């Protein structure tokens, strides 16, 4: 009896532990991105270089929309609607790719080079962020494949939730990076 309740506690706890661990990881990553942001202000103050404003607001909207679709995917799996969740996940992946292409296009058409100070911080910040976006796309693809194979349900969907939390985190980082690079 005592052992049984202990085991029940253990599974409940283990989800809680994973969630808290992931948050700590985000916290730690926040410092990483925060340092890059401070480097931008340290080197350039709040000067802003000429950037393609329409492209900036466009890719930001796309990434934020992908966060909404990711949330919808998680909500769907929490209600055991597997095929809905699958479509939302695929939509998120597609939006992630569009965002990455947008950044690539910005890189290709930028009016400054990486050898000058603003270019240095711009390419580093967008580059580190894009690496996170691409790894997020990879993780989403992995959970989508497993979802397609019939894993996950409302009782067991931590890998989906964790990945989507990561996706939201990457989105929040961009929400800070976008004004830092384009608007300030």
């Amino acid at each position, binding site marked *: 009896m005592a052992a049984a309740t202990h085991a029940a506690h253990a599974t*409940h706890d283990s*989800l*809680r532990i994973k*969630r*808290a661990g992931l*948050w700590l990881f985000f916290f730690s990553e926040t410092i990483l991105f925060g340092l890059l942001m401070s480097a931008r202000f340290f080197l350039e103050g*709040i000067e802003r270089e000429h950037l393609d*404003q329409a492209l900036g*607001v466009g890719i*930001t*909207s796309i990434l*934020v*929309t992908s*966060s*909404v679709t*990711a*949330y*919808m995917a998680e*909500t769907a799996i*929490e*209600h055991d609607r597997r095929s809905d969740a699958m479509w939302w996940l695929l939509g998120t992946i597609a939006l992630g790719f569009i965002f990455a292409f947008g950044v690539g296009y910005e890189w290709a058409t930028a009016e400054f080079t990486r050898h000058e100070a603003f270019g240095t911080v711009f390419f580093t910040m967008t580059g580190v962020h894009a690496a996170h976006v691409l790894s997020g796309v990879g993780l989403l693809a992995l959970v989508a494949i497993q979802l397609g194979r019939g894993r996950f349900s*409302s*009782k067991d969907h931590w890998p989906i939730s964790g990945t989507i*939390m990561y996706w*939201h*985190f990457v*989105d*929040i980082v961009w*929400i*800070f990076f*976008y*004004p830092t690079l*384009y*608007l*300030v």
Partner: protein
Amino acid sequence: MGSYRIGWIMAVWLIVLIFVDFSIAQWVDHDQLRFSLLTIGTLAEAIPIAYYFMHISRVWQGEVH
């Protein structure tokens, strides 16, 4: 409030704020004011995402099912 509805409301809220931020950047000329307004706008996007999308309160409240 249904979970899906939260998603739609958030979608509208975030898109509106992106364009508010964008407009602030175009039309506010005073450096410090622009910086402060953008900071507020950014936080107004990030905090609801952390709360509604990332379920930060489950860290201390436990899982809800």
